[in-house]
Structures are given as structure tokens and as C-alpha cells.
């Protein structure tokens, strides 16, 4: 390690927000003069961000039945639980019949949606941080890019025009998805802020527009049956919703 141990400890404490305000200001001045240390701070923060994107979903998962705090349940409780379970099954059956098709695939669908949002957000964080290699194919070769992505995705991919929101397309890249290829199209505005559209193959059912869990990077997602869309950016939900509407409008003119 090139820096002195004290600087090393300070650097981590700075990344982890464990410095007092004066120490913090002091260290920020140090960072201005030490670009290598500054680069490490940025990289460690990105690591932390990626970890949260990768694992925070676990917090929202239902806790599996086999995990419980108490060990011993009385026989009465067990019987009662069995009865309650039967009642729920009966109720579920009735409800299922009433809502035929509507919510039948809910848990699987929710898992797929979490996966989509997570992958879109992860790809957003990773590639918007890149400078020279942000995209694989630049938007300057738009027709080439559209042909290439459409062929790989086996669906008509479009690059919606978002200039009315101040965003210009930078280009796109192909990504590995859970069910075949996925792709990302990146945009940037005059202030250097970036926005990404993530596309994956959908399961055939159209889904309404929804927002992902609260996070620094906001995600709005939906599916038109053929493609699942996720638009990500450090924008307000309002702004993002307007952009998503434009993307959805544009994709409906696909043909």
C-alpha cells in the first residue's frame, strides 16, 4: 500500500462516513491533491453500492417458513396452524377461481420483476460510471446498433428519441440476462447526467408501469408482452415516469 497506515485508515473511515466533520473536511482537502486516493474512494463507494443492489432484495423477501425464532411449538399450536393452513388453502382456491389468470403467477412474477429491476439497476451503476467504454456501439451508428440489438434480442429494438427531455442517445450494449440476452441503451444530458433503458425478453404477458424499490437510482419498469423495459436514472420518479411514458409510446409504434 503506497499511503501511510494512518491515511489508509482515514480513507476507509471517510468511505464509511465514520469521520467527524472536521476530519472529514481535512481529508477532502487531502483527496483533492491525491487523485489515486480519490479514485480508490470512488471505487470503494461503488463496491458498496453494488453490494446493496445485489443483496438488499433479500430484506424484502418473505422469510422462509423454516426460519423461526421459537423452537418448541405446542401440539395445540401445530393443530391450529394446520387448520389455519387448510382454511387459507380453501380461501386461496376460491380467490384463485374468482381471479382466474389475474394473479395466478404472482410470486413467480414478483421474483422476475425483482430480478429485472436489480439487473437494470446494476447495469446502470456499472456502465454509467464508465467514460471511454460506456457503450459497445455508439449511437452515431444507430442503424447498425438497432439491427444488431434486434437480431440478438430476436425482437424489434428501438432507440427512442428523448431530446424533448434533454437526453441524447450515447449508444448501447448487449448484456447477459436470465432468459437469453438483454441490452442497455444509454443516454446523457448536457449536464452529464445519464439515463439507461434496459430491455429483456418478456414472458408473454403485458404488465403495467411500476416503480422499483426506493434507491438512489430510481427504476421504472413494465412489459409489453414481448419485451420487458426498465428505465433507470438518478431522477425524480416524476421525471422518470414522463420519460418512461415516452419510451412506451415509442415502442408501441414498433412494427
Amino acid at each position: 500500500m503506497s499511503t501511510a497506515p494512518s491515511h489508509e485508515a482515514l480513507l476507509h473511515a471517510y468511505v464509511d462516513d465514520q469521520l467527524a466533520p472536521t476530519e472529514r473536511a481535512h481529508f477532502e482537502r487531502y483527496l483533492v491533491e491525491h487523485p489515486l486516493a480519490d479514485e480508490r474512494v470512488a471505487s470503494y463507494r461503488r463496491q458498496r453500492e453494488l453490494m446493496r443492489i445485489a443483496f438488499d432484495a433479500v430484506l424484502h423477501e418473505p422469510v422462509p417458513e423454516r426460519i423461526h425464532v421459537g423452537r418448541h411449538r405446542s401440539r395445540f399450536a401445530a393443530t391450529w396452524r394446520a387448520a389455519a393452513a387448510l382454511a387459507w388453502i380453501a380461501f386461496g382456491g376460491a380467490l384463485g377461481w374468482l381471479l382466474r389468470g389475474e394473479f395466478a403467477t404472482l410470486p413467480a412474477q414478483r421474483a422476475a420483476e425483482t430480478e429485472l429491476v436489480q439487473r437494470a439497476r446494476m447495469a446502470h451503476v456499472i456502465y454509467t460510471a464508465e467514460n471511454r467504454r460506456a457503450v459497445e456501439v455508439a449511437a452515431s451508428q444507430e442503424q447498425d446498433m438497432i439491427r444488431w440489438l434486434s437480431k440478438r434480442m430476436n425482437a424489434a429494438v428501438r432507440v427512442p428519441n428523448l431530446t424533448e427531455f434533454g437526453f441524447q442517445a450515447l449508444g448501447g450494449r448487449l448484456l447477459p440476462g436470465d432468459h437469453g440476452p438483454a441490452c442497455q441503451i444509454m443516454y446523457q444530458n448536457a449536464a452529464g447526467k445519464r439515463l439507461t433503458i434496459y430491455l429483456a425478453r418478456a414472458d408473454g404477458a403485458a404488465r403495467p408501469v411500476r416503480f422499483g424499490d426506493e434507491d438512489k437510482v430510481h427504476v421504472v419498469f413494465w412489459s409489453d408482452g414481448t419485451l420487458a423495459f426498465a428505465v433507470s436514472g438518478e431522477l425524480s420518479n416524476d421525471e422518470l415516469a414522463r420519460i418512461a411514458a415516452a419510451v412506451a409510446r415509442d415502442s408501441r409504434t414498433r412494427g
Partner: protein
Amino acid sequence: MLSNAAVGDQIPSLRRYARALTGNREAADDLVQDTLERALARSALFRPGGNPRPWLFTIMHNVFVNQVRSAASRRTVHLDLDSMDAAGQDLAHQGLAVRDIERALALLPAEQREVVLLVGLEALSYADTAKVVGVPVGTVMSRLSRGRERLRGLIDGAQETAPLKAIK
């Protein structure tokens, strides 16, 4: 004495940490369940008014270390630094995969992975992390430093290798 509710509140975050630590849903939930059982058996030892969070993570650390130790005695796989670097190189050729934090974490030695996750993911203070893994704060800092630097090589390293591939 520790209330079931206080323990129950920590289950989501214990599951998140266990998932990141083991990289496997089943193994992670086993680890959580073993931790909860042991916590219950020892709840009389919990200091009243104490913080259940570091206490539970300490128990999980002990269960995890025992599991790793018994797994290591069954299998005689020795992962040295060179073979881990080779694995990292393999990942570097899989595009996005190398940037996949889960895989990069799996390549860290367990003692570094624990510290990186307790601090970065669970936001424990350095002092609490030291208590949880049972080492001095200085050791926590050096594990954190080595772990993060290694992750940086695995995740950001691809940027350096990618242009080389393109030249041929």
C-alpha cells in the same frame, strides 16, 4: 433476557448478510436458522439493555467459522493466492460477469469477505465489527483494506484487460 421480537427484527438483515457471505440461498438460510437456535439457547447471556444486532452477528460469525472449519477438514482444497488470481482472470473474460459483485466477493478469503460485508453492507462500526469477528480494530482495518483493494482489482480490473483483448 432477549425477546423473540428483538431477535425477529434482525432476521431480514441476518438473511441479507448470510446470503452475501455464503453466496447461496440454502446455505444462507441454514446459517440463519443455526444462528437463531444458538441465540435462543444463550439468550440468558445477553446483557440487558445491550444491542441485539452485534450480539446476533457475533453468534452468526461463530457458527459460520465452525462451518468453514469443518468443511475445510472434510475437503482438502487449498485456495492459494495464485489460483484465486487465475479464477479472477477467467472471470475477466466473461464480460459483465467479472463486474458481478457476488462473484467477486466469492473470490475473497472468508475473513476479508466478512469484514467487507459487515462494514459495507450492514453498516456496522469498526468497533462493533471487531467485536463480532473477535479481533482488534487494527486487524479489522487491514482486512477491510486488503478486501476492498482485491475487489477493486476484480471489478475494475476488467477495464484494463478489455482493451488488450480488442487489439489482438
